[in-house]
């Protein structure tokens, strides 16, 4: 039932995926100043991959994603925890936000941004883990 794979869905999914992913990154990076942020961006990206999954199936999505969704969860949690540490380096309380400006492009890097990326990856990884697991067991059951 999952691989309906109609032409419109397939084409739409292929075209929309990059756009949606770009949009999710945009939401993630602007999140500190405008509506957006890690949770929302993660959900948008999950939606994009879920659409792709419905159009092309789990294997194609894995090929697209290159890494296992479970690893995304792990990396996301790691980033979240790592962002707590630089403050210790500065002798400030655990988790105090740190800001650095990257010289040439004037980009502001910070631990909150790192943390938000962690949130993004955890949300993306969790949703995809659940959905791919469900799709795969469905396939096993149907077979």
């Amino acid at each position, binding site marked *: 039932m999952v691989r309906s794979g109609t032409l419109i869905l397939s084409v739409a999914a292929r075209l929309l995926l990059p756009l949606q992913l770009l949009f999710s990154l945009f939401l993630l990076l602007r999140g500190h*100043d*405008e*509506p957006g942020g890690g*949770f929302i961006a993660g*959900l948008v990206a999950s939606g994009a991959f879920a659409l792709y999954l419905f159009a092309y199936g789990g294997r194609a999505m894995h090929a697209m994603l290159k890494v296992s969704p479970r690893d995304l969860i792990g990396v996301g949690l790691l980033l979240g925890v790592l962002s707590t540490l630089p403050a210790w380096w500065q002798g400030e309380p655990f988790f105090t936000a740190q800001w650095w400006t990257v010289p040439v492009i004037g980009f502001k890097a910070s631990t909150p941004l790192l943390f938000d990326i962690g949130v993004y990856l955890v*949300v993306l990884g969790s*949703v995809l883990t*659940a959905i791919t697991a*469900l799709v795969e067991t469905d396939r096993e059951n149907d077979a």
Partner: protein
Amino acid sequence: MEPLLAVAIGILFAAAIYMMLRRSIVKLVIGLMLLSNAANLLIFVSAGLTRGGPPLVPQGMVAPEGVVADPLPQALVLTAIVIAFGVLSFAVVLVRRAWEIVRADDLDRMRDTDT
């Protein structure tokens, strides 16, 4: 608007609880969805409502002008929505697994742990 929403939330809670008291496991899941939405809304409304004042600081300013909505419950509810989704997926899969093993859609028939 708050009193009206308070009544609406009350009805949402009542509906959620009624569904959770059913014996059918699918109704239980629907009850769970209603409940998490009702709870989110409860937190959001309890802090008071503000029209047309999103908690954003305009560019180039230090603090927002005029009254803005309380950002704290919004932050709480934002994570709660996502968590509720995670919990829902867990509950749904749990129910599905239980059904696959027990083949009973009646909670009363799931009392024994040895089936």
